[in-house]
Structure formats: structure tokens, C-alpha cells
């Protein structure tokens, strides 16, 4: 059998295979395209969910700051004197059921050199995901039970 007849022999027997192969290539391309779009969509959803949670948590942390600033205006806190850098700290966990399912933890810190300047840190964690942490910070000056919000941190003073 010559080479040309062998070629023709293969051609005649494989006519249907080309159509099948072509169909499979089209199907594969369409599947890959759809899967890529689906993957992008899932990624977008995850991103959007994370964005929502972070904004929601930030406003809760901000609420914690506002709450503690009000609390400071009517309460004289009992500070825990530390040995590092002449600082005093106070850890609080205000009960704020209206901000569920988030838990707020407040940390107050002041330098004994300027005790009227207080640095407040509001840390928010989610009940279902303790690794999810968001925080907001504010420096205030306490003068005669009046609170003045300041820019920057207590270390600036």
C-alpha cells in the first residue's frame, strides 16, 4: 500500500471524528468561559460581603468610641497603673446589645505626664468569626468632665 492510499484510507474512516472533535473543542471552550465567569462572580460576591462586614464593623467600632466618650463624661475611671512608659490603661467591655452580633472591647490609655489626654481604642469582633477584627481610634482631652475630641494619638502630646 502506498503512502497516499494509506492517507486516503484514514481520511475515509475518520470523517465523523472531525465533527466530534470540533464539537468537543467548542464545548470545552464554552465550559471554560462559563466557569471563569462563575469564578469571577463568586469572587465578586465574597469581596462584596467582606466590604459590607468591614463597613458594618467600622460603624460599630465608631459607636463604641461614642459610647465610651459619653461614659467618660459622667464617670471617673479607675486606671490600672502600668510600669511601662509611665502609662495607665483601662480595659472595658460595654454591654451594647443593640450592636449584636458584634462584641466591642474598649481600651483606654493615658500618659501620666499628661493625664488629661486619653487615647481610646475601640476593637470590634464578630461573634461567629473571632478572627474578624476592626478597630477605631480617637484621642480626647478631658477638662472638667468635658470631653474634647482631638486629632492624632496621645503620643503626639
Amino acid at each position, binding site marked *: 500500500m502506498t503512502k497516499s492510499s494509506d492517507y486516503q484510507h484514514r481520511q475515509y474512516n475518520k*470523517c465523523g471524528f472531525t465533527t466530534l472533535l470540533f464539537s468537543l473543542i467548542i464545548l470545552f471552550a464554552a465550559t471554560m468561559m462559563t466557569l471563569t465567569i462563575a469564578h469571577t462572580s463568586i469572587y465578586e460576591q465574597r469581596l462584596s460581603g467582606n466590604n459590607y462586614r468591614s463597613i458594618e464593623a467600622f460603624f460599630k467600632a465608631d459607636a463604641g468610641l*461614642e459610647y465610651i466618650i459619653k461614659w467618660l463624661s*459622667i464617670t471617673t475611671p479607675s486606671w490600672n497603673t502600668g510600669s511601662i512608659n509611665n502609662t495607665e490603661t483601662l480595659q472595658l467591655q460595654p454591654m451594647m446589645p443593640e450592636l449584636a452580633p458584634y462584641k466591642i472591647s474598649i481600651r483606654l490609655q493615658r500618659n501620666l505626664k499628661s493625664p488629661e489626654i486619653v487615647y481610646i481604642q475601640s476593637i470590634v469582633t464578630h461573634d461567629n468569626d473571632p478572627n474578624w477584627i476592626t478597630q477605631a481610634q480617637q484621642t480626647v482631652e478631658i477638662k472638667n468632665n468635658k470631653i474634647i475630641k482631638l486629632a492624632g494619638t496621645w503620643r503626639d502630646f
Partner: protein
Amino acid sequence: MARFLTRDGEVKLCRTQRGMMLIDALISLLIISVSLTALLKLHWQVTRQSLETQMHNIALNLAQKKLTEIHNNAAVNYDLINSNNDSISLSYAKRPLEFKRQWQVQNVSSLDYKLITVSIRWKTRLSSRQLSLKTIIGKP
């Protein structure tokens, strides 16, 4: 009538292979049609889901904008912050979107602060969705 070459190089006619190409093509067409229908359905669902995600993002931005606006107004007119609502019409990807925004203000007298809740509702093709943001604003 289909022709094929034997190993000896002779051309033979085969009656049993008559119309075989047509059947092959039809079967391929059937397989492609069924598979593409499923893929298109999945594609449609993904596109719809993507649009809903975008709508969620827009709603979140609107809620955040309102809450920040209330926060800024509180520094000037704390006592004038009250519950209210509005409606926002937008167009996204040539589709009209409508969001109903509502903000509720609750006075908490014990520490003299206000609990603000901004809720946004919008309708998708299949359901109605809602999100809300909460915060506290103290009297300056």
C-alpha cells in the same frame, strides 16, 4: 453512497454507511445543543448574581453615605437629627434601579446619645433585598 479504501488500495462502496455523516452531524448538534443550553442557563444565573452583587454594593454605598452625612450633621445640629426616609432612582447597565432608604433615630437618654439605623430596601427580579447599618452618635 459512502466509499472507502481497503488495505489493498481498492475503492469499495459501502451501502451500510449511507447517511452516516448526516447522523454524525445531527448527534453532534444534539450534544452541543443540550450542553450549550445548560451552559447558557448557568451563564444567565451567574450574570444575574453579578448584577445583584453590584446592586448590593450600590445599596451599601448609599447607606454608608447617609450614615456619614448624619454623623457630620450631628456635629452642627444634633437635636435636628430625626427619623426619615427617601427614595433613590439610579440606572446601572441600562437598567433602572430603585432603592428605598430609611433612617431611624432612637434617643438613649441614659448616656445622651442617639442610636442611628440606616436601612435600604431594593427589589431584584426574584426577590426583595435589604441591608442596614447601625451606629451611635453622642451629643457633642
